[in-house]
Every structure is written in C-alpha cells, then in structure tokens.
C-alpha cells in the first residue's frame, strides 16, 4: 500500500518532467494552448465573477459589523482588500478552478485514455504528452493568475458596493485607507505568486490524474474525485507554506 503510494509519487515526478520536456509544442503551436485557455479560463469566468462578487459582499457586511464596534468603519476597504488579495482571492479562486476546470481536464484525458485515443495518437507518432497533456497544463497555469486577480477585483467591488453604496461608509476614506494599507509588492504581488503556484499545482494534478486513471468509466470517475480532493488539500497546504514564507508577521 505505502509502496504503491511511493511508486505513484515517483511516476508523478517523472510525468512532471515529461510534461516540461514536451512543452515546446504548446508554445510553438499557440492555437493548441489558446484552445485550453478557452476551456479552463474563459469557461470559468462566470463562476469566478459571481463567486468573487458574493464573497466581497459577505466580507463587506461582516467586516462592517465588526469594525463599527470599534468605530473604525473607514478601515472596511483595507480589510476587504487585504483579505482578498492575500488569501481569499488566490485560495478560493484556485478551489473553484480545481472543481470547474481541473475536473473537466481530468475527465477529458481519462476518457481519451479509456477510448484508446491516446494510444492511437501514440501509434500515429504524435506524443500524447506533447499534444494533449502539455497544452492543458499550460492553459491552466496561464488562466489561474488571471482568474484569481479577477476574483479579488470583483470581491473589492462587492465590498465597496455593500460598504459604500448600501451602508454609506465614506467613499474617499474607503479607497484611501485601502491604498495606504495595501502594498503592491508585498500584498498584491505575493497574491499573484500564490495564484501562479496554485495554478501549477492544480493543473499538474488534473492532467496527472487523467493520464494515470484506470481506463474504465469507474476509473475515470474516481480520478475526477481525486483531482478535486487532492487539489483542495494541496492548495490549502501550499497556502500555509507560502504564507509562512511571505508574511512572517512583519506587519
């Protein structure tokens, strides 16, 4: 059992190198990757925008509730913006991305394997990792930071909507406090790095689970479940590690 796990881990590592090695075609033939950006990025737009907005609305409401007890409601902007750019944006967007795009990538590759499409490709002297896996991997890696940024931006707008438009916090104070409290390099850029790392992790898990799935209907459905569960755990664990590197209680 344990030996099996370690075996799989070793295979995953070798698989990762193969993906990187055969990535050339994904960039030389951009339409391949563009197509995957469409499937993982564009088709995730709606869920990211709507979720981001709602998370922002909730943050705005809860933040206001708490801050007004201390009479510092004008700090609402900085509260909403910091929670989103540092944590919620990258993490929640990555979780949504794993279940929306990651699972469908796993299903697609798993079904291609089950119906011998990958073997057929290999017989036609086209490497399945170069033609099928690598473009999906890079499509995910490119989409993820953009989706996370969009999520954070929508969240800030949601917080502004609740705080300023509905509750009546001062508009100027909301933005100026936010701007003086959120540092580009420290808060926003670290958030972008986080979402980039999550994008690599989720995309890799998704393509690997698909490629390594047992080629039956049941095997593919298990692989999809594993993609979502493993991605979620990996995102949260990585988030802890990255946070402890990036924000060591210096502010």
């Amino acid at each position: 059992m344990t030996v099996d796990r370690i075996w799989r881990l070793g295979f995953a590592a070798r698989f990762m190198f193969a993906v990187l090695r055969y990535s050339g075609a994904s960039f030389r033939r951009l339409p391949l990757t563009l197509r995957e950006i469409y499937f993982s990025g564009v088709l995730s737009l709606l869920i990211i925008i709507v979720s981001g907005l709602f998370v922002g609305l909730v943050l705005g409401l809860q933040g206001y509730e708490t801050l007004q007890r201390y009479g510092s409601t004008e700090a609402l902007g900085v509260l909403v913006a910091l929670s989103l750019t540092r944590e919620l944006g990258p993490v929640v967007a990555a979780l949504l991305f794993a279940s929306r795009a990651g699972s469908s990538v796993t299903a697609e590759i798993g079904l291609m394997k089950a119906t011998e499409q990958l073997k057929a490709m290999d017989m036609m002297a086209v490497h399945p990792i170069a033609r099928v896996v690598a473009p999906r991997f890079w499509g995910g890696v490119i989409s993820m930071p953009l989706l996370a940024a969009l999520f954070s931006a929508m969240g800030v707008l949601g917080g502004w909507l609740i705080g300023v438009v509905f509750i009546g916090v001062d508009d100027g104070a909301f933005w100026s406090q936010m701007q003086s409290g959120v540092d580009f390099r420290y808060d926003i850029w670290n958030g972008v790095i986080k979402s980039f790392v999550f994008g690599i992790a989720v995309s890799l898990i998704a393509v690997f689970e698909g490629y390594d799935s047992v080629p039956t209907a049941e095997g593919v459905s298990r692989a999809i479940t594993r993609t979502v569960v493993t991605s979620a755990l990996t995102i949260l664990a990585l988030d802890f590690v990255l946070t402890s590197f990036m924000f060591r209680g210096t502010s």
Partner: protein
Amino acid sequence: MNRTVLDLWVGIFVAIGIVALLFLALKVGNLSSAHLSETYVLQARFDNIGGLKVRGPVKSAGVVVGRIVDIKFDTATYEAVVTMDIDGRFRFPKDTFASIYTSGLLGEQFIGFDVGGDEKMLKAGDTVTKTQSAVVLEKLISQFLFNKAAEGQETK
C-alpha cells in the same frame, strides 16, 4: 492561419484578467503613489521603538513621505537603528526631529518628522540625530497612577 471566435474569447479573457490586475495594482494597492519617484535612505536611532514595524509609514505634517525599510538592534549602544526610504521629492533640514507616534489610541505606529529651521539639508545615508522614542502606554499609565497616589498622600 485564420482568426476564430475562440481567439476572440481568449483575447477578452486575457484583457479582463489584465484589467483586474491593473485595478488591484493602481486602485486597490499603492503602486500609483509609491515608487514613482526616486527615494533616498535616512537612518534614525531610538532608545525604544515600541511597536514600530518594517513597512510602516514615515509622515511629516501628516503626509506620508516615506517608508520604514529596516529595523536593527545595535549591540554597541543598545539602541534600535531604523532605516527609512524617503521620497526623493522631499528634503528635510539637518535638525529635523524624528518621533514615534501612534495613530489613535490603538492604531499603528509611525515615525513623524517635525521639521526644524536649519539651512543645511539631510543627505542620503545621513542619520537623524534628534529623536524621541515611542510613548509606552503602560509606563504612562503607571506614572499617572503613581502621581495620583503621591498627590493623595500629600493632601492627607
């Protein structure tokens, strides 16, 4: 190669993503105000910096003029050495007074510059000599109580 509808959508997606990033950078973050001009480094020594943090603001007359970039402990003098990046547009006289203030009762701590009248200006790498340490709230309160107690004894 033909342009396709798919390309259009990917284009829209990337554009929206970049707009979101710019929004975060310029409207949410401080990229629009910070780092636009050159900065120069000043140092100041304090007996006690209280809760001062790296990246905290340096203000003069309430306007942010720089950021704290480093805080060190000098084992020779047992003082805290604070390094600040000051906006290159602003120059301060040699006899500027650097104090540590707290915004509000419980807010963040920052360094405030109270400007003197010297003709000579501080140059990059200079040390601000006149400093005032942080007000430690506990000390203030115990002092106040002690004074009260002393007063009480006098009136008896």
